C-alpha cells in the first residue's frame, strides 16, 4: 500500500526528502544555500523547517529537522512517506564521528525509512583539514549498509559546491525506481 502511494506521488513529480544529521552539521545552511538565501545568519534549528524546491520539474519537499539531542527523539515523527533521506555530516568534527555513525545506522534500521534512498552530504569540505570522502566511508562504515541505495558527496554549504549535484542524484535515483516497480 505504501509503495503504491509512493509511486503515485512520484508520478505527480513530488518527492518528500528528509534531511537529518547531528547538530552543527549544516543542514539548514545547505537548504538556505540551495534556496539562494543568506547563509550567514542561520540560527540553530528549534524544531523543523519545510522548504519546497522546484528541481527539473520535480517538486521537492525538504524537511529540515533540528539535530540537537533533545530533538533527535522526535525525528521518528517525520519518517512516514519519506522518499529520500539526506544525512549531513560535519567533516571537521572528528570528535563526534562515532556519534554520527551510530545515529545513522540506528535510522537505517527503521522500517518506515526502508524504501528511501540515502544521500550522504559530507559538508564543510571548504575547510582545511576536513575528513576526506574515503575517511567518511570508512568511519561511518558505509560499506556495511545493505538495506539502502547510498551515495556520498563532498560538499560545502558555504560555497554551494555539489549541492545541486546531490539533488540531481536524489531525483535520478527516484526516477529509476519508478520504472522498476
Amino acid at each position, binding site marked *: 500500500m505504501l509503495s503504491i502511494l509512493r509511486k503515485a506521488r512520484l508520478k505527480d513529480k513530488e518527492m518528500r526528502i528528509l534531511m537529518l544529521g547531528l*547538530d*552543527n552539521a549544516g543542514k539548514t545552511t545547505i537548504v538556505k544555500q540551495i534556496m539562494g538565501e543568506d547563509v*550567514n*545568519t*542561520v*540560527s*540553530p534549528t*528549534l524544531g523543523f523547517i519545510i522548504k519546497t524546491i522546484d528541481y527539473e520539474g520535480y517538486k521537492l519537499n525538504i524537511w529540515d529537522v533540528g539535530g*540537537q*539531542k*533533545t*530533538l533527535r527523539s522526535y525525528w521518528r515523527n517525520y519518517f512516514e512517506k519519506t522518499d529520500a533521506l539526506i544525512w549531513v555530516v560535519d567533516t*571537521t*568534527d*572528528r*570528535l563526534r564521528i562515532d556519534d554520527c555513525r551510530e545515529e545513522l545506522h540506528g535510522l537505517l534500521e527503521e522500517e518506515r525509512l526502508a524504501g528511501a534512498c540515502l544521500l550522504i552530504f559530507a559538508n*564543510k569540505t*571548504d*575547510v*582545511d*583539514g*576536513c575528513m576526506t570522502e574515503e575517511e567518511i566511508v570508512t568511519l561511518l562504515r558505509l560499506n556495511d549498509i545493505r538495506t539502502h541505495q547510498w551515495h556520498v558527496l563532498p560538499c560545502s554549504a558555504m560555497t554551494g559546491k555539489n549541492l545541486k549535484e546531490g539533488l540531481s542524484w536524489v531525483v535520478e535515483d527516484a526516477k529509476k525506481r519508478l520504472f522498476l516497480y
Partner: protein
Amino acid sequence: MDPKEKFYRHFRDSVDALQDQIDQLTQLSSIGGERQDATDNILAGISKLQNEVADAAEFTPAYDRRQYSDAIKGLQDKLNETLAKFAPKTRFQFRRTGTDHIDMGAPENDPRLNPGSLSRRPRSPTTAPGAARSMAEENRDIVGDLPSTGKNYNEELAKPDLASIRKPSFSAAQSIDISDHDGLHIILPSSASRATAAGCLRNLKNCVIDLSIPTAQGAPFPGLILKDIDRCLIVAGRVNGPIHINDVTNSILVVVARQVRIHNCKNVDIYLHCASHPIIEDCSGMRFAPLPEYYVRDDDPSTSLFWDQVDDFKWLKTSQSPNWTTLSEAQRLSDEVWTKIVPGQPGIGVEKVLAKVGIPPK
C-alpha cells in the same frame, strides 16, 4: 672524456645551480607555498646529487668522493641556515603559577634523576593518543616548515621545563588543538594564524587561554570546539562559523561567532557576539553579556546582536528560562580586566588571574 672528469664537471655544475637556487630563496614569497616549492626542489636536487655520487663511486677515487660528500654537506648546511632565517619570531608568552600543578615528587619530573635531559623529554600524554594528539613529530632538522607536519606544541607546552617562559612554535601548525593542560597561561602568538583548520580546546583545567591575537587579523577559525573545561578563562578569538561548547563548568568565555551551541554546561559566564540566536541545551547557571569593548572591531555589525536572545532547548515555554540570565552592567568584568589582567603581567600567576576575574577557588 674520462668518466671521472665528466662526472666532476657535472657535479660542479649541479652544485653551482643548487647554490644559486638557495640564494634566490630569500627573494621568494612565503605566501602561496612558493618558497616551499623551491625548498622542496632544492632538497630533491641535493638528494639526486647524493645518489649520483653513490652511483659514480666505482670510478671516482676515494679522495674525490670525500670532496663530493663535503660539498653536499655544505649545500645542506647552507640550506638549513637560509631556512632558519625565515623562521618567524614567536610572541608566545608563558607564565607558571607555582608548582602546585606539577608533581615534583613524581620520578618523571625529578630533575635529579634526569640531569640535563629534562627540557628535551616530552611528558607522556595523560590521555589515550587519540586524534587530538595525531600531529606529527616536528621535522625541523630538514626543513623548517614542511606543510604536511605540525609540531606538537601540546607536548612542548606541557614539558616540566625549568625555564619560566616557553615558546613553542605555532608557525608550522595547521590546526589549533590545545588539550590536556592544567594551570597554564597560554597566549596564542600571531604566527599561529597559518592554522586554517577548525580549532579545538579540550580537557583544560585552571587555565587562562587567549586565542584572540592570531584570529583578530583576518584569520578567524572556520569552526571551534570547546570540550571538557573547568575553571578556565578563555578568550576564544574569532570564529567565522559555528562554535560548539560542551561540558564546560565554572568558567568565563569570550566568544565571537556566527553560530553558538552550548551543551551540558554549568556556571559559565559568556561574553558574546553572535550573528544568530545562541542555543543552550542541558545547561544551568549560564550568564550572558555582550562582547567587551576591548575586543570589538570596527567592522563588526552593531545591529542584529543576539547575545541576550538565547534559545533553551530544555525550556520551550514563553517565560524566561531558569537556566540562563544576563549579566547586568555592574556584574560584568571591567575593561581593565581585558586590557591588563588577561594579557598577563610579570609576577601574576594563573591562579591570581582566575581570582581577579571572579572564578571561585578550587
